[in-house]
């Protein structure tokens, strides 16, 4: 006999057999309501000492849940420029950089991600005052600059890391480490969705591929998988969405009707009232709805020419820009359809080395940004204008962000800027956000946030605050 077999059963088996039938047949039906307090483990008591958790119906995990207080924003679009988009070549105007161009940065010798610094270097793009606010914006993002009066800039952002993977983790999840839930996951966990036939949370990867921290940016972390984003874009549909071509439509329909019949029969005859089983039956119905609604929302053929033109989706010279523009149109259509949270990625980590397909301009910043700028600029501006003209901006919060900033210097021996988590820019726009406003500032070179220093936590808290 093995070690673990040594524990005898307490009960005489024969006696058990004799009495089981009667012993279990009389089931007490008394409702001892007073005792229900002990069941709170199912629903942890929502006192101050216990973490707050939303109450989620497994049959409709994405059902809308009320915010804590009146929310300014109902939906969110995050435009994430992957690779660390330089604030000094876009939003953060530094006259001192023009004046001291080519000179070493005063102060200590800074060693950054890839090593030593060369001299201070002005942006290859010029800055102009834009809109009524006169906000100085670089010509790299000329179209977006038109909307400067609607934007709320945070120039004093700081990050905790200067590596892309952890940096994207941090911006998207609030933690530099792998394995934490993304912003969209906590938002949909808390608020659910207004829409019951589309995913509550959609991530739209760049036409060139996934960002550096890949699915971490929209993962569920330790939250249920239902709260992760469904990732697709205008060219790559949801995986396994459609019936494979090898299956005839009538076979598919009949199989699913049979499956539904089996499942309902099983629920009724074996486990009546089981919510998880009911939820699975519902999920197959939802899947069928999604098979119709996702292609519908992704079908841009109904968009009129002037809209395609607004976004630059008709640009035949620049197919990459046109592809990103289509992603931008998709983002608007998703928001229109009631999707709670949309993440729109610009830039991907792809073959070809740093900065080629994203904003990681270490070596040849001017050349690479000359590619990336036009891809982002008109399409994203088109999205914002479109949201505005359709009145969607009043309850949609747009967040433009990137994992960290770049140095005011060029790297020693290179024509690009190294990583800089000490100061960078993000902006917000739309629902409840102060228009044409700039918050915080970096120092005279744009190296370090010095005024009203803001953290990624602050940014996240603001987003949550606006969502109620």
């Amino acid at each position: 006999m093995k070690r673990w077999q040594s524990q005898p059963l307490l009960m005489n088996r024969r006696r058990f057999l004799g009495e089981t039938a009667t012993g279990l047949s009389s089931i007490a039906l008394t409702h001892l309501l007073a005792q229900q307090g002990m069941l709170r483990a199912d629903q942890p008591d929502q006192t101050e000492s216990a973490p707050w958790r939303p109450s989620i119906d497994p049959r409709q995990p994405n059902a809308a849940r009320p915010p804590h207080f009146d929310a300014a924003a109902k939906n969110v679009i995050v435009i994430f420029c992957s690779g660390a988009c330089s604030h000094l070549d876009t939003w953060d105007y530094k006259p001192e950089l023009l004046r001291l161009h080519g000179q070493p940065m005063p102060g200590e010798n800074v060693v950054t991600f890839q090593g030593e610094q060369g001299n201070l270097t002005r942006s290859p793009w010029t800055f102009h005052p834009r809109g009524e606010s006169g906000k100085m914006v670089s010509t790299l993002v000329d179209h977006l600059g038109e909307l400067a009066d609607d934007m709320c800039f945070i120039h004093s952002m700081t990050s905790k890391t200067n590596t892309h993977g952890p940096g994207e983790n941090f911006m998207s999840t609030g933690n530099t480490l792998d394995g934490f839930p993304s912003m969209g996951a906590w938002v949909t966990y808390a608020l659910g969705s207004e829409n019951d036939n589309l995913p509550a949370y959609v991530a739209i990867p760049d036409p060139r591929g996934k960002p550096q921290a890949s699915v971490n940016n929209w993962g569920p972390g330790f939250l249920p998988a239902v709260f992760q984003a469904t990732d697709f874009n205008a060219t790559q549909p949801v995986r396994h969405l459609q019936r494979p071509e090898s299956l005839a439509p009538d076979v598919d329909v009949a199989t699913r009707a049979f499956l539904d019949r089996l499942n309902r029969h099983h629920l009724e005859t074996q486990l009546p009232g089981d919510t998880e089983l009911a939820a699975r039956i519902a999920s197959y119905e939802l899947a069928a709805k999604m098979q119709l609604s996702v292609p519908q929302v992704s079908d841009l053929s109904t968009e009129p020419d002037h809209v395609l033109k607004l976004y630059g989706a008709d640009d035949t010279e620049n197919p990459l820009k046109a592809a990103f523009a289509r992603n931008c149109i998709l983002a608007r259509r998703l928001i229109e359809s009631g999707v709670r949270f949309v993440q729109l990625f610009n830039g991907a980590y792809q073959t070809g080395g740093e900065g080629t397909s994203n904003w990681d301009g270490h070596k040849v910043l001017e050349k690479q940004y000359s590619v990336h700028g036009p891809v982002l600029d008109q399409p994203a501006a088109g999205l914002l204008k479109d949201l505005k003209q359709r009145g969607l901006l009043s309850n949609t919060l747009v967040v433009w962000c990137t994992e960290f900033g770049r140095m005011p210097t060029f790297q020693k021996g290179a024509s690009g800027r190294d990583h800089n988590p000490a100061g960078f820019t993000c902006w917000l726009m739309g629902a409840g956000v102060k228009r044409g406003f700039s918050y915080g500032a970096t120092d005279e070179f744009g190296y370090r946030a010095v005024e009203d220093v803001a953290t990624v936590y602050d940014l996240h808290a603001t987003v949550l605050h606006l969502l109620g």
Partner: protein
Amino acid sequence: MQRFCARRWACRFAVHHGLFADLRVPMLRLVTCVVLVGCVSSVVADESATSRPAAEVSYETSIGPLLKENCQKCHGAERQEGGYRVDIRQIAMKGGDSEEVAIVAHQPDQSRLLRVLRGTDESGLRMPPEDEAEALAEEEIKRIEDWIAAGADWPDALAGDADAALETDQWAFQPLQQPTVPQLQDPWVASPIDAFVLQKLRATGLEPSARAPGARLTRRLYLDMLGLPPEPAVVQSTADGGDALDGDLLEYERLVDSVLADFGHGERWSRHWLDVIRFGESDGFETNPERQRAYPFRDYVIDSLNDDKPYDEFVREQIAGDALGVDVATGFLVAGPYDRVKSPDINLTLMQRQDELADIVNTTGTAFLGLTVGCARCHNHKFDPITQEDYYSMQAVFAGVNHGERALRTPASQEALARLDQLRAQVAATDQSLRSLAQYCRSDQSRAEGQLREPVNATGNVEQFAPIAARWIRLQIHATSGSSEPCIDELEVFGAVSGDAAERTNVALAKHGAKVSASGTLPGYAIHQLKHLNDGQFGNAHSWIADSSGAAWVEIELPAVITIDRIAWARDREGQFGDRVITGYTFEVATEHGQWQVVASSDDRRPFGDSQPNPYAFVQQLPAEHAEHAQLLLAELDKLRDELRQLETLAVPMAYVGNFSQPGPTYRLYRGDPMAPREQVSPNSVRVIGELGLGTDAAEAERRLTFANWITASDNPLTARVIVNRVWQHHFGVGLVPTASDFGAAGVPPTHPELLDWLAAELIKHDWSLKWLHRTILLSNTYQQDCVPRPDCMAQDAGSRLLWRYPPRRLEAEAIRDCVLAVAGNLNRQAGGRGFLAFDVQAETVHHYFAKTDWGPNEWRRMVYMTKIRQEQDDVFGLFDCPDGGQVMPTRSRSTTPLQALNLLNSEFMLQQGAAMAKQLQIEYGDDDQAIIRAAFQRAYSRDPDADEMRWSCELIDEFGRPAFCRAILNSNEFLFLN
């Protein structure tokens, strides 16, 4: 007793780690939630510090009452906002959770308390809070300032009990109880488990459910314990048509023992443990390369569970296996993600190291102790009696652990190592015997002494031999450097004519009438032609390359018989190329074609690339009487050396189990910032439970071993409770403590505390045998209950937490995939070893993974063998709440999404398995659809179809075929549910 965390910050989800501060940009206001904080080092004030003359202020009559009146409401015995209290001297001085200096004697300007009272602290914090009370009068603040300046004298009698702060009434920290098993005279009670469960049920007015039908119970047992459905034959044999088990407990007990003895048990349950300890087989973060040798740890877990390794031993080995002769077990320490992207930036490097250690500390605290120790990285724990010092003390335990591979000293490798020693001795002895034969050599001294010729080289080799008549000269090529096709730029043959050597000419030149032939020429290259061999031009551009990398030959036919004595050849006399050098060859000559005589060979050259002479070259010169013996010795030596070489590369396999080095000092880091070190800490445990008693200079392995022993000491209140709860959780879907890795105050208390303690105490008594625990649970009537919902019970306890029935639930991703393959007849039961990949990999600096679209038997192994790539989920099953190993995952969520449905309906993988299942059934049952349907139900559900199901199934098959039917079965709720 004062509860440690009577009232702390409501640590809401996400707010805690993501959203600590609240920035309202539109309102132009930055309000940061800051905790009053202080620094330990200030407790002992520097007496010699410049002290300002100050009026004598009494704590007893002046300061104490002032603090009490204004602060104690929130910072006293009742509440400790920010972990700060003014009624205990040590804490008042030291500061609160974020541990910034509160009071530094003699140094008012270093004392944060004053800044906070005046609202001048950089955090913007003012106390008392602006919305609650007026600031203290400047006169009062000045009084405190004077008191501090005078030395902050605080009489011992009024110091308060500092230790009180480290006491706790949290249930999990209390010693294990030995609860009395309730004596219930009820036939349902078959085990103490049932007694505890029934007692609680009765107290709530509920009754347990009847025993589940035999077939259902068999299926439950298999899915739960093995993660696979029982073969219909098992259901038949144990139940005689599905029902006999109902009446036969002995039969059930045999079934329980059989699943406990099944190898599949370890394969199934290892996954539960691997979740808890965030095991992954890639680095994660942005580069995410695969760890090709992480799998031995996975096999170690499988084997440990199957071997019923006592749990305490299992724990000790994972923390300090290197010190216990189980190297592979320390894979636990480095099973987490690792940021491989390094930088010259010191800030980054230090933070990365802190993150690595945080991963280890957090996982250790969570996995074994059920504590969220990681929360104390930046501040004292908000809910539990875990200080920031505890966190860094635990970090000091693991400070010498580094990511990477290490040689495994397994029993097998130990054996091999012993053999290695033996071999080396044999080689030395044989070498000695062989060398001693050198004395018998004949006169050719140069060779007898091992003076072999130079090795061949690329730029020019000469073969000199006694003059010999030749019409044909043949070069036999045996070996070429790099195993490539050999190359010769020119082959020269010199005649041994009398007279001045300078007059000798290359008789092999084509222009002199010599003809060249060869075994073959590499096709397609104008610069590599056969005719180049004797065209008189040197260099790669005029060379010949054979068409074979193996044996090859070249032959030159002279116009007439000529006496020759020298051959010269080279790969590239111009010295541009050093590859394709012939390293093994024979030159032969003949006057009659076919009658070859060897004139030179590579045998008397030292090996290619070897600058050392061959010490055994003399063997060839030995007289016959010794030559045979020498050849035997030489052969023996070759054999030994071959074995030696093989063993040296194989004997000590490497695995991703971490490396260890003696660490430097560990410091407490203010707010977790590596650039803000505070006092040094020694390796220690969570002090509220116990101490390790190690010094700051303790040896690296000793730190971990001592810590492991502390965790597994029988008086550690957490370890046994935590593992019992985890095992319970996987049997019943939810643990007795539902927050399986948080036994602290933020967790949820147990539904059955006495049962938990009884099981924990008994587990220790049973030598920590997990199989004992499984068996005890499986044999309880609680486990054997039916799962059918009863309205009255549902109304009271919908979650079945009180166990009035067996709680049904969806299977996990791995079990679903394994079951699909099993039912389709495709499951490959190959156990252990290197896993299989679900992805095609693009291996660059950053690794990209693309879901495979083609599967075969190699991918049809159990999913525990699917290489666990972080961030990338299996294309079909990942969405079933499969964790990715980024963080500890003690309890998987169980979500239901339309995307899961789409994956099971439409993925190629599932369609392939559905078709395979249909084909398999057809092979077995031909065209008998009823038999096919019955078999499918038995395999998937362990039961026969009822009349309705049979009818619907027949209808579907009639019109739409068997694959459609199988596709539906594999998607069905019943198939995916454990009940």
